[in-house]
C-alpha cells in the first residue's frame, strides 16, 4: 500500500471516529432518538470495506455501520451530512427520517439499508447478487454482519445458497468477540467463524480487523475475485468494539485496556504512517479537519426541519394510499 492510500484511509478512519463520537455526545444530550450502537474501535474494518465498495455495488450495513454509511454517502454522493440528518430523524435524512440509525439506505451510493432483525439481509443479499449474476454485471453484493448473526438460520441458508449458485456475495463478518454479552465461543460451535465458511466450500480469510493495511488488502483481494466471477467470499475480521452493553462495561478490565490502549486501529495506523515519515502535525491536522467536518454535519442535522407529516402515511404501498387519521 502506498503512503497516500494509507493517509486516505487514516482520514476515513478519523471520519468514522469523529462521526460516532459526535453522535454519542448528541445522543447523551438527548438530541438523537432511539438506540445507538457505535462502530468505535472497528474503524479499520469499516474503512477497508468502504474503500473497495463502488456506488454500483450493494452493501447491507449492520447496526454499527453509521461510519460506512457516511463514507459511502460522502464519497459517492458528496452529502455525508444526510446520514447524520437521518439519525436525527430529520426531513433531509437519506430516508426522510423514516429509517433512522438502523434503517438508513441510499441505493444511489450502494447502501441497501440495515435490517434491525439481525442477519435477515443474509437472505436479501442473495437476491441482489443473483440479479447481478443474471444480468452479467460485475457488481458485488456485500452483507456486513456481526458475530451474533451466525446463530441465525438465514446465515446458514445464505452461505449454502451462495455456494450452490456461485453468487457474487462478499460476507464481511465483524467478529468483535461478543453478541451483546454472549462471548462468540460460547454462542457458536466455533469462535473462528471462517471455519463455517470452509464447511460450505466458500473461499475465506481471517483478518486482523484492527490493522488497516491487512484489512484493506484482504477486502481488495476478495472484491477482485468476486468481480472476476469466482463466486462468494467470506471475510472474518477479528476486532473489538469499544461500546459495552447498554448497562455499561461487562468485559474484563485487562481486556478493555488491551484493546483500547494497545490495539486502537487509529493509533496503529498513525504509528505506521509515522514510520513512513508523516509528522505529528500532519496527523493532528487530519483529525482536526474531520472533527470540523462532522460538527458541520451535526449542525446541518440540527438545523434541518422535521419530516413533513404526510410522510407518516406515504409509501406504505406503491399502488394505494393509506388514509391519514
Amino acid at each position, binding site marked *: 500500500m502506498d503512503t497516500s492510500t494509507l493517509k486516505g484511509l487514516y482520514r476515513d478512519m478519523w471520519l468514522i471516529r469523529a462521526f460516532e463520537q459526535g453522535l454519542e455526545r448528541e445522543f447523551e444530550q438527548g438530541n438523537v432518538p432511539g438506540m445507538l450502537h457505535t462502530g468505535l474501535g472497528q474503524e479499520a474494518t469499516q474503512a477497508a470495506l468502504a474503500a473497495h465498495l463502488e456506488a454500483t455495488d450493494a452493501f447491507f450495513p449492520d447496526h454499527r455501520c453509521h461510519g460506512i454509511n457516511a463514507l459511502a454517502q460522502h464519497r459517492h454522493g458528496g452529502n455525508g451530512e444526510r446520514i447524520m440528518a437521518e439519525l436525527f430523524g430529520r426531513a433531509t435524512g*437519506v430516508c426522510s427520517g*423514516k429509517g433512522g440509525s438502523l434503517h438508513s439506505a441510499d441505493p444511489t451510493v450502494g447502501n441497501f439499508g440495515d435490517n434491525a432483525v439481525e442477519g435477515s439481509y443474509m*437472505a436479501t*443479499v442473495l*437476491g*441482489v447478487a443473483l*440479479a447481478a449474476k443474471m444480468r452479467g454485471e460485475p457488481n458485488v453484493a456485500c452483507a456486513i454482519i456481526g458475530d451474533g448473526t451466525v446463530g441465525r438460520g438465514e446465515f446458514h441458508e445464505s452461505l449454502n445458497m451462495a455456494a450452490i449458485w456461485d453468487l457474487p456475495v462478499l460476507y464481511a463478518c465483524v467478529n468483535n468477540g461478543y453478541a451483546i454479552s454472549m462471548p462468540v465461543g460460547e454462542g457458536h460451535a466455533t469462535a473462528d467463524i471462517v471455519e463455517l465458511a470452509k464447511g460450505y466450500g466458500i473461499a475465506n480469510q481471517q483478518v486482523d480487523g484492527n490493522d488497516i493495511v491487512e484489512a484493506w488488502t484482504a477486502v481488495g483481494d476478495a472484491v477482485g475475485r468476486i468481480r472476476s466471477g469466482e463466486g462468494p467470499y467470506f471475510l472474518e475480521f477479528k476486532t473489538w468494539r469499544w461500546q459495552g452493553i447498554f448497562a455499561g462495561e461487562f468485559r474484563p478490565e485487562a481486556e478493555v485496556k488491551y484493546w483500547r490502549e494497545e490495539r486502537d486501529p487509529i493509533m496503529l495506523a498513525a504509528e505506521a504512517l509515522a514510520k513512513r515519515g508523516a509528522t505529528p502535525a500532519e496527523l493532528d491536522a487530519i483529525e482536526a479537519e474531520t472533527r470540523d467536518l462532522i460538527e458541520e454535519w451535526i449542525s446541518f442535522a440540527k438545523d434541518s426541519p422535521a419530516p413533513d407529516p404526510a410522510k407518516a402515511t406515504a409509501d406504505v*404501498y406503491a399502488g394505494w394510499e393509506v388514509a391519514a387519521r
Partner: protein
Amino acid sequence: MTVAADKPRRTARTPRKGKDRVRKTSFTQALNGALDLAMEKHDEMFLIGEDIAEMGGDFGVTKGLLAKYGAERVRDTPLSEAAIIGTCAGAAMVGMRPVAEIMFADFIAECYDQVVNNVAKLHYMFDGQFTAPLVIRTACGGGFGGGPHHSQSIEGWFLNVPGIVIAAPSNPVDAKGLLLASIDSDDPVLFLEHKALYRSRAEVPPEYYTTPLGKASIAREGRDVTVVAAMRMVPMALEAAETAAADGISVEVVDLRTIRPYDATTVLASASKTGRVVVANEAPRIGGLGAELSARISEECFAQLRGPVVRVDGLDTPIPFSVPLENIVLPDSDNIAVAIKAAAQY
C-alpha cells in the same frame, strides 16, 4: 381486460361433464397460463421455489415452464424458505420481478420475518427508494385430510401487516387475472391458492388479461342478505345462496378477491343495500378476516343494518387430520345457509 367471475352454478345450457373437461380450464392450468404469459412479458421475471422446475411444483402450477424458459429463470431451491423470500426481496430491490412458490402456506412461518419485517416494509422504511414487486404464491386451506401443517388458512397472519397485498381468487378466471395483476404490481403480493380450488374449472380466456387488485366482484346479485367471502368460501356461499333462494331469500354474494387492501366500497355498499350480512371465512374466528369485516360493516353501516353481522368461521382449533374431524372444524355451505337464515330473521 377484466373478466367477471365464472359462476360455478350449472344451468340447462352447461355442457355435459365429459365435454366440459375438454373445453374448460382448471384453476391450476389458469395459473400456469398466467405464469407463462408473464414470463414472456417480463424479461426481469423469474420463478423460484422448491421442486418447481423439473417437477413443476407440488401442484403442477409451474409445469413445463423450465423447458420453455430455462433453469436461470425457473430456479429450484433447497428447503430454505427464508432464503427464497430474501432472494426475491433483494432481486426486487434492483428491479427484478420474482415469483416465489412456498409449497404449503403453513411453511410461510419459516419466512415470516422476511415477509413481515423486510418485504412488506421495504417501500416505507426506506422512504420509497425501493419497491418490492414480488409475488409469493402459496397453497393454503383445508378439506383434504392434510393435517395440522398442510391445511391452514394463513391470511390472518398477515392481516395486521401494512405493505403486503393479499390476493385470494375463488375461480380459475380470477386466478389468472389476479396472478397477472399481481406480477405487474409494484407492491409485494401474497397470492393464496386454495388447494380445494385447484381442480375447479371454467372457461378461461387464453389471452393476457388482468383482474384488478383491491376490487371485489359481485358473484351473485341479491336483495335480502349479503354474504362476503373469499376463496373456497365463495363457491360454498353460492351453494348456500341456492338453498336460501328455495326458501325465498335473495342472497348477494360478494367475492372479495383481494383480502388486503380489501374493497370496502363494494362490501359496504352491498351491506347497506341488504341490511343483513354474513361474513364467511375458513380460518379460526378470533382476530380473523371475519372479525375485521364484521367490525367495519357494523361501524360504517350501523344505520342501514337490520340485525347483527353473522360470522361463519373455522372452529378455534388447529386442523385435525381425520376427515370427519376436519369436517367438524371447517365451515361448509350448510353452515353458511344456517347463517343466512339467522340473518334473514331480522
